[in-house]
């Protein structure tokens, strides 16, 4: 799921300091799950901001409201009757949610209160690890379920490199070498031949912003899929 981390308080404060009435919009989706931007975090941030503005001559009014997911129209729509009461919106959703919010209310100044960090797993409460960089061409079948794009610092497809030592990456002793792990897993499963031949240069397909409509829904939107029309 998408993992985000709250921005430093000073940074958020600097974003909103010139506004009088701010709505802090939380998200009960990914950012709530990773304890960065759910309702509790909205309340905590609002409290901290109120305290930080106490010294100022005029402190802004900061209120909070949490929607289920800021990446979906039906939930964002709940904000429609509310936004006109404010002159700025703070969003604790991931980058996608912030942008969707800004798109829905183009006249509102929208600010992100969290940094979206990665697509990852929840090892345990408060502990998150990156696992996927959305390259769009999953090769996990070949590498035994370990991603060479995300987990190898050098994005090798024919690793490991010469810097791998004692099973960890040359960059940081705490980072395991992805290719050592790929090797171990494939060996244990008797699938080592998958990495014995040279994996050819791959086409990077996530270099422009992506949009797609599932085939079964294309008629609904009179959408002509680029690839479909070429067939």
């Amino acid at each position, binding site marked *: 799921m998408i993992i985000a981390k709250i921005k430093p308080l000073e940074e958020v404060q600097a974003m909103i300091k010139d506004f009088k009435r701010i709505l802090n919009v939380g998200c*009960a989706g990914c950012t*709530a*799950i990773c*304890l960065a931007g*759910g*309702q*509790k975090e909205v*309340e*905590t941030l609002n409290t901290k901001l109120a305290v930080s503005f106490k010294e100022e001559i005029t402190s802004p009014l900061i209120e909070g409201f*949490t929607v*289920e*997911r800021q990446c*979906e129209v*039906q*939930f964002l729509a*709940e904000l429609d009757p509310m936004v006109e009461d404010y002159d700025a919106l703070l969003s604790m959703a991931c980058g996608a949610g912030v942008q969707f919010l800004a798109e829905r209310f183009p006249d509102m100044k929208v600010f992100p209160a969290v940094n979206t960090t990665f697509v990852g797993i*929840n090892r345990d*409460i408060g502990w998150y690890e990156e696992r996927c960089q959305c390259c769009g061409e999953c090769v996990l079948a070949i590498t035994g379920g370990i991603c060479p794009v995300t987990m190898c610092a050098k994005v090798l497809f024919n690793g490991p490199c010469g810097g791998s030592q004692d099973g960890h990456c040359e960059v940081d002793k705490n980072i395991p070498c992805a290719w050592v792990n790929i090797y171990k897993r494939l060996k244990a499963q008797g699938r080592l031949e998958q990495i014995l031949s040279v994996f050819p240069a791959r086409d990077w397909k996530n270099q422009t912003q992506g949009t797609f409509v599932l085939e079964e829904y294309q008629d609904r939107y009179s959408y002509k899929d680029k690839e479909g029309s070429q067939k």
Partner: protein
Amino acid sequence: MTETTLRPIDVKKIQEMLTLKKSKMKVLLSFCAHCGLCAESCFLYRNHLDPKYVPAYKAINSLGKIYKKKGKVDREQLEEMKELIFKNCVLCGRCYCPLGIDIPSMISLARTICRSQGVFGVFPYAVGEP
């Protein structure tokens, strides 16, 4: 613990929130024919085959209850519906109702009301665990 968990239930606030989707709630409570089609379309129900996962059940026993009590619920009652709306539903939005009841919207409002009173779902979704 945030402030909201220690404050008493703010009935007025709940009543305000209920007005947001008043017409939809009326539709839910009067039109639901218990046809079970929403259950067919809910993957959680299909996995568990437990009535507590039926979308209409979840909506009626959460938001429906709050509405019937005209917002005058106590903390225990809100805690009771936590399982239905936070654990038994992921708000994927795929539930289908032939009568046009907007079930996700109902459950979403139930969640908003609960959260506003400091009743949260917990992650991982395990009812009662910190």
